């Protein structure tokens, strides 16, 4: 209740900073530790896939809808996946209604880039007929409670949504009409690689991962690194913080290591839904 304040007091800032310097955080974590993830999939019956993911106090519910449309001319045999994020004013007194702002666009863009460059979505399998009909997937994230680090939470929620997807399968019959086979494309058809995005905050010269709300509001900036099993697929530095080259190298290495651990712990493939 009313814990979210626009101006954070000087003593809270000093308190968090002094403890970070001693490798200690107010919620009991060490600097390189995630808060707990909780994942529920297929929570929205109207959607073709959905996930309700919480990371600490941050909660994002995302859902998948589809349309069949024409492919882009330069990729005639590839489906399309677009992402959108909305920071609902219900989620925090810091969020205001209205058209998407920088923060929500950044959230969607960072996750989108991580997924796009990791060969996560098998776009070629989302093609029904070359040059004519492909699936257009809409992956929309709605932030239900803002407790810091929406990017990592959103990233997991997008992956869980795609894995739990069940999109009706369409084919062209002999008369060149699109018909539905009654079968569904599931996560195995859509998802190939699982890129995890890992965010680090920076206050003064201290770097730590998965900032909670107060830490995020106090941060000078942050860096989000998307990783697959052994590759880096996107990096986004945001805020006014600056990072040294050595720091970036260290963070890239850390990200791969943490990504591996997270991949094992979350075991997202367990959320695959086989729909007859």
């Amino acid at each position, binding site marked *: 209740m009313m814990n979210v304040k626009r101006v954070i007091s000087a003593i809270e800032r000093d308190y968090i900073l002094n403890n970070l310097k001693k490798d200690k955080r107010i919620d009991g974590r060490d600097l390189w530790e995630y808060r707990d993830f909780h994942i529920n999939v297929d929570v*929205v019956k*109207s959607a073709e896939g959905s996930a309700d993911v919480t990371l600490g106090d941050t909660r994002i*519910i995302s859902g998948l809808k589809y*349309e*069949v449309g024409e492919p882009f001319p330069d990729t005639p045999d590839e489906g399309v996946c677009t992402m959108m994020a909305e920071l609902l004013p*219900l989620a925090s007194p810091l969020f205001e209604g209205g*058209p998407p702002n920088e923060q929500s666009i950044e959230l969607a863009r960072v996750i989108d880039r991580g997924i796009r460059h990791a060969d996560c979505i098998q776009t070629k399998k989302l093609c029904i007929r070359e040059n004519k009909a492909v699936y257009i997937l809409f992956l929309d994230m709605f932030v239900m409670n803002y407790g810091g680090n929406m990017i990592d939470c959103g990233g997991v929620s997008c992956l869980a949504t795609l894995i739990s997807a069940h999109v009706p399968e369409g084919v062209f019959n002999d008369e060149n009409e699109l018909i539905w086979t009654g079968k569904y494309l599931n996560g195995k058809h859509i998802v190939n690689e699982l890129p995890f995005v890992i965010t680090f905050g920076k206050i003064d010269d201290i770097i730590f991962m998965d900032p909670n709300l107060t830490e995020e509001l106090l941060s000078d900036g942050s860096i989000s690194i998307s990783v697959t099993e052994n590759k880096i697929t996107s990096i986004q530095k945001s805020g006014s913080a600056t990072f040294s080259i050595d720091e970036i190298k260290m963070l890239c290495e850390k990200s791969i290591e943490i990504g591996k651990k997270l991949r094992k712990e979350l075991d997202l493939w367990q959320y695959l839904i086989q729909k007859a």
Partner: protein
Amino acid sequence: MPLIIKDEYPKKLFREDGKRLDGRDKHELRPIKMEVGVIKNADGSAYLEWGNNKIFAAVYGPRDVHPHHLAKSDRGILRIFYRMATYSVFERKRPAPGRREKEISMVISDCLEPVLFLELYPGTSFEVFIEVIDADGGTRCAGTTVAALALADAGIPMRSLVTSVALGKIDGEIVVDLSGIEDKAGQADLPCAITWFNDQLSLLQFDGDMTLEEMNKCLDLAPDILKRIYEMQLNALKEKYLKIREEVNKSEEIATEGGEQ
């Protein structure tokens, strides 16, 4: 070419055995689950599952009014923002709020205003955000019900709770709590809400066609149905506290038992 599987309406809305398509009797409600205190940042919040409808509501206030010109110097204002998630409906909804959402927001706001003491909070606003995550008919009624719960959870003084339900006519029969398909393929839909401090209707809309007798029958039926949902609201609000109390008692029992052994 936006090709999507066609949403086909069934010819009949009753099964052979006289039950409705989802197996309900004419005056039976869908399963309802309510919970308060689900959004930590909000001053008050509630979550409702009503059949396939899944709705969150959060209350913030009393707080400053933005934009400032909406503020009234002699009283507070209640602002409702009813929104549907893009994926909550069959065909993806556009992200920007549509005319329907704005109208429903206004209807719910008018419905809830009589229970609040807005004159006590001049120059401020109470904002209620209703987010429909999954929709299957009757979301304005479910939204009103869950918004009242969230207001009560915020500890805002209220004359009473508000409860809402839709009645209607399908295949010539009066039924309660229309599902999405019944709403679309049925003949009439009558969403209504009651303010319990005076037992009067505070939300009322009607679409379709009904004879005078049918309308009377609907209106006579409404209080009983609303009462059923009201009991659930009372339980949901108290549940949060009773559960903790129960857990505490249980842990104490274990502790004393352990001491005796």
